[in-house]
């Protein structure tokens, strides 16, 4: 099985360890991983901030780049949601029939990481070892747009040594929301405070998610407040073994 990793712009720049972890997990499971260096960004930031034309250019770029890929794996729920929910609308409004049919052909092969692990590879147990207390933040796009359901829990439950701490109000937004976090910084921070109360109440050592964007927001606040908890992308937990424990920033 050959999988093309779309790392996403912010993981590439800010969270390279997440990308390395995805490569490690997939290769351990026998997947032939490729990385197409022409990739940049899915266009979510532009689309959600009202820059439709710019988002369209990036959407087009994505479809052209992966037209011949066997599978595209993306370790970011919100970017997958962008492709699934917003690309069709962008192409309907600004695209042509050729682009639309190319996109329709590609879409079924675009996977969020946990979808790829479970739905394609059927690998609930990825052979990970992470002896820590962990709580899982569902992230709105993973929960409502991708409907990941129990996939993340099935994966975490098989990680040896991991103790899962349930999070209250699992379906409540953390307040990140992309440019919302700076355009409405005060409201975003108030939402974050509410979320952090629930997260900190789990007394976990780590808060994990399938999307580093929410974790950047929550982790940034934890660091500001000297909290006894850190954030970690789930790929890094799944990549972690006794021999090669997770890199923790």
């Amino acid at each position: 099985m050959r999988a093309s990793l779309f790392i996403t712009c912010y993981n590439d720049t800010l969270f390279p360890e997440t990308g390395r972890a995805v490569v490690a997990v997939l290769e351990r499971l026998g997947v032939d991983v490729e990385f197409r260096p022409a990739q940049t960004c899915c266009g979510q930031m532009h689309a959600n901030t009202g820059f439709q034309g710019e988002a369209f250019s990036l959407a087009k770029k994505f479809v052209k780049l992966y037209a011949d890929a066997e599978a595209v794996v993306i370790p970011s729920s919100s970017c997958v949601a962008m492709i699934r929910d917003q690309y069709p609308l962008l192409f309907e409004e600004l695209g042509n029939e050729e682009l639309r049919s190319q996109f329709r052909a590609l879409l079924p092969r675009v996977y969020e990481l946990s979808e790829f692990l479970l739905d394609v590879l059927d690998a609930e147990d990825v052979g990970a070892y992470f002896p820590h207390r962990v709580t899982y933040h569902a992230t709105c796009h993973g929960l409502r747009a991708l409907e990941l359901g129990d996939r993340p829990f099935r994966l975490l439950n098989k990680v040896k040594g991991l103790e899962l701490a349930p999070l209250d109000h699992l379906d409540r937004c953390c307040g990140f929301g992309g440019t919302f976090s700076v355009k409405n910084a005060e409201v975003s921070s108030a939402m974050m405070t509410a979320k952090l109360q629930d997260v900190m109440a789990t007394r976990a050592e780590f808060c994990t998610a399938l999307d580093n964007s929410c974790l950047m927001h929550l982790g940034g606040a934890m660091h500001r407040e000297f909290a006894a908890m850190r954030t970690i992308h789930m790929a890094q937990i799944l990549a972690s073994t006794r021999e090669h424990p997770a890199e923790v920033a």
Partner: protein
Amino acid sequence: MIHPVMDPKLAPPFPQAALPVLRNTQLRKNVAHATDVITAKRARLVAEKSDWRALRDSASELRMHVLENLGTYLEQFEERCTAAGGVVHWAADAAEARQIILGILREERAKEVIKIKTMTSAEIQLNPFLATNGIQAHETDLAEIILQLGNDEPSHIVVPALHVNRSQVREIFARRMDLPELSDNPQELTAAARTYLRSKFLAVPSAISGANFLIAETGGVAVVESEGNGRMCLTLPRTMITLAGIEKVIPRYQDLEIMLQVLARSATGERMNPYTSLWTGVTKEDGPQNFHVVLLDNGRSEILRNERERQTLKCIRCAACMNACPVYRQTGGHAYGSVYPGPIGAILTPQLLKMEFAQSLPFASSLCGACYEVCPVKINIPESLIDLRARVTDQERQEERRFFDPLYVGMRMASKVFASAGRFRAAQRMARIGLKAFTGRDGWIRGLPGYGARWTMTRDLRGIPEQSFRDWWTARDNGKAKP
């Protein structure tokens, strides 16, 4: 407390309007508590309906069918309502609706008028208009009384005084009804309101209502409520004026079967609302003998013409979206600067104003999707929010002063950078170098200048790592990377 501005033409942008509310810890506590209680009740009652999905689909399709045939159903309503003894008026905008209502009340020589809770009357700012024309409007909905006597504004479309708690109600009643001994016992508070209301019901012969539904088939009107005060307004006065948005029509009487089920469960978390009043025209010697319906457009036709945004008008004003909204939970309704707050308000308000005002509202959302999940008529609010953001951005880009707005500069630069991987890689390096001066020894950034300060005011930011993923990949391909 700062008096909230509810006119979208005058209200400050959402981020600014939210600031006084975010500092008001009592209000935030009241809002969080009230919305948590309603959402829990709603979730319980929706879960007990095994056919909820089907009900929701039907409600959604029914509302969309109405919008696609609105002209036909409105004309049918007018014809049947007129035949039953009602008088139907058409108001193109708020000013015309106000004039029609004033005209009717003048004919009645009314000095006072009693009102059933109607958010549409707040949309056209009816009460202050009547007051300047010498007619005193008395609200009869308990929440609206609290707000009227407390000189406050509605913050929610179903529970307008949601941001006020019981002891604050006691204080308002004690002061305005001259009852210094009043306690905050709910029974005592409702008894005080009842005494106050009875004097109005018995003395004022003109009333104004809104409408939950207009029934095309019969020409009838439906109003749902919890207190029975609306029922009093519908039986005692001589003259009744119903103000309704043109989108409120449904085809048949039987359609109430679906609409009332989804409305009560979504709005208040009840199987059925306590009072459902239905009336058709005028009944001789029973109830109001003069009945007027004012059909209000006020921007709705324009929304209807836009195929993608038409869904906005499916709304049945249940407020489930605002109860579920994590933004509303922090700010309450006043920050939206409109009688329609929350997610539905964020898409409805700017559209009612032809996108000329309230442009900050479509951005007042983290796009979490909780609103769409609970909407009983399946309005895809996040999708509309994104569409409207594009319309606002297209407008703003024409403005010269926006050219140097840091967000616009950033988005333009990002677009150039993302257009090519080579440029992106160069930008990554430049950002790494540029941010070095702000990065602490532990690799974290605690403060950024300019626009970046909007992030670092509450959050640290991890500094950009030495090696991007793509550089690691290239190095690994060349056999030079760490494993």
